[in-house]
């Protein structure tokens, strides 16, 4: 937390001098904006936060923040962040990425991160397409979305991230929209403050490869139902949802997983010595 007497943090304190190269109109700007607002609201210093990502347009976010950051390996943001949080429980660890990175390449890690319930906040910018590699269908792409690589659509069922997160044990599940950075900032604050694994699905339009997603701003709405801690009720809500309801769906009370550290800890030199030939 900020020290008494320190200047009140403002969102700009959490942005780096590196300027985003996302396409004009990209939803990811709204997420960066919301993250900076959330960090300012929580009063955390930039060095108290680590932002970890995988690969993809949205995974560029760590470079655009003034926090510790790791732009890591495709699909491997969650295991990296898990290790970081376990080693440095004092840090607030936020994981960011896209639908391809998180649900396809990193799909298995997603399940187990929910199950382990380490105190992380995972923000997925879902545009239902692989934008960085020129518009291939992703796990959340609609079955009939036609593209050069999948004429007439993939014919495959869509991945349902919120259902998977709930079934796998995530402690906090919410959906936000990039066109509402203030609302999204509220969700991020709640996610960070809820112990355990918090999953925030963000509808983030890809203006370049999915220009029809500009219509999302006319379709999204605050969810009519309040957050629940009842998994059965949350499951019913998920499966009667059209994907456009915003807000917290589920907030549980499962304690975060944090193994004890310290006693069995070895120095880097000791570990290195074990591998010496």
């Amino acid at each position, binding site marked *: 937390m900020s020290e008494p007497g320190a200047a009140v943090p403002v969102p700009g304190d959490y942005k780096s001098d590196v300027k985003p190269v*996302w*396409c*004009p109109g990209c939803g990811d*700007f709204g997420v960066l904006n919301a993250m900076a*607002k959330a960090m300012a609201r929580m009063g955390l210093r930039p060095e108290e936060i680590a932002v970890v990502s995988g690969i993809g347009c949205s995974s560029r976010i760590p470079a655009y923040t003034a926090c510790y950051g790791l732009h890591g390996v495709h699909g491997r943001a969650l295991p990296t962040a898990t290790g970081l949080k376990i080693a440095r429980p004092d840090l607030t660890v936020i994981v960011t990425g896209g639908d391809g990175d998180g649900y396809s390449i990193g799909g298995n890690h997603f399940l187990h991160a929910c199950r382990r319930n380490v105190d992380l906040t995972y923000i997925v910018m879902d545009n239902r397409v692989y934008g960085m590699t020129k518009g291939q269908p992703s796990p959340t792409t609609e079955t009939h979305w036609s593209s*050069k690589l999948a004429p007439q659509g993939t014919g495959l069922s869509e991945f349902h991230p919120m259902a998977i997160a709930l079934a796998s044990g995530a402690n906090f599940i919410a959906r936000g929209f990039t066109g*509402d950075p203030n*609302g999204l900032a509220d969700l991020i604050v709640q996610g960070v403050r809820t112990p355990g694994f918090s999953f925030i699905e963000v509808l983030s339009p890809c203006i*370049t490869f999915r220009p029809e997603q500009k219509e999302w701003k006319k379709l999204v709405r*605050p969810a009519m139902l309040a957050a629940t801690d009842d998994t059965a009720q949350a499951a019913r809500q998920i499966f009667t949802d059209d994907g456009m309801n915003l807000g917290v769906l589920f907030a549980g009370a499962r304690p975060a997983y944090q193994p004890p550290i310290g006693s069995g800890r070895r120095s880097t030199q000791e570990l290195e010595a074990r591998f010496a030939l």
Partner: protein
Amino acid sequence: MNEMQPATAAPRTVEEFMTHACALEAEAAERYTELAELMAAHNNPELAALFAKLAHIEGLHRDQILERMGWPAPPDPSVCRWETPEGPETTDYGDLHYLMQPWHALKLALHNERRAAEYFERLAGGPVPAGIRSEAAEMAAEEREHVRLILEWLGRVPEPEADWDHDFDPPRAVD
């Protein structure tokens, strides 16, 4: 131009009102600055300059409020509640396009100024203390003047062709 309409809470004191007015101008200036940097990154110096100019203008409005209130820096904007997801004068990131032209940027600015004017007009006509009503009416008149100036500016900028967003080298290859 975002369509969501979250609940709003009207300011209760003149200071709260001025906090909203300051946040409105500050957020608009910050967003225009961000857009100027974005357009510079995308090698569009003409739009970068235009957004930078709009940022400068909004920054002057913010500074006027700071001076008038004797505030050294803008107050905490997180207390502000808007009828729109962000401040009424803030450009929605989603309204940009990589092939947009100055005319489009000015249309966005016009939309923002109109929305700001409407915000202040609603407050001026609403159930708020008399001090807020007169301040809001003054701000609304200023925003209406900005609307007039942007309309004049738009009249000097060529309107794009109907197929302005046609990309001869599109990012998404099609057969």
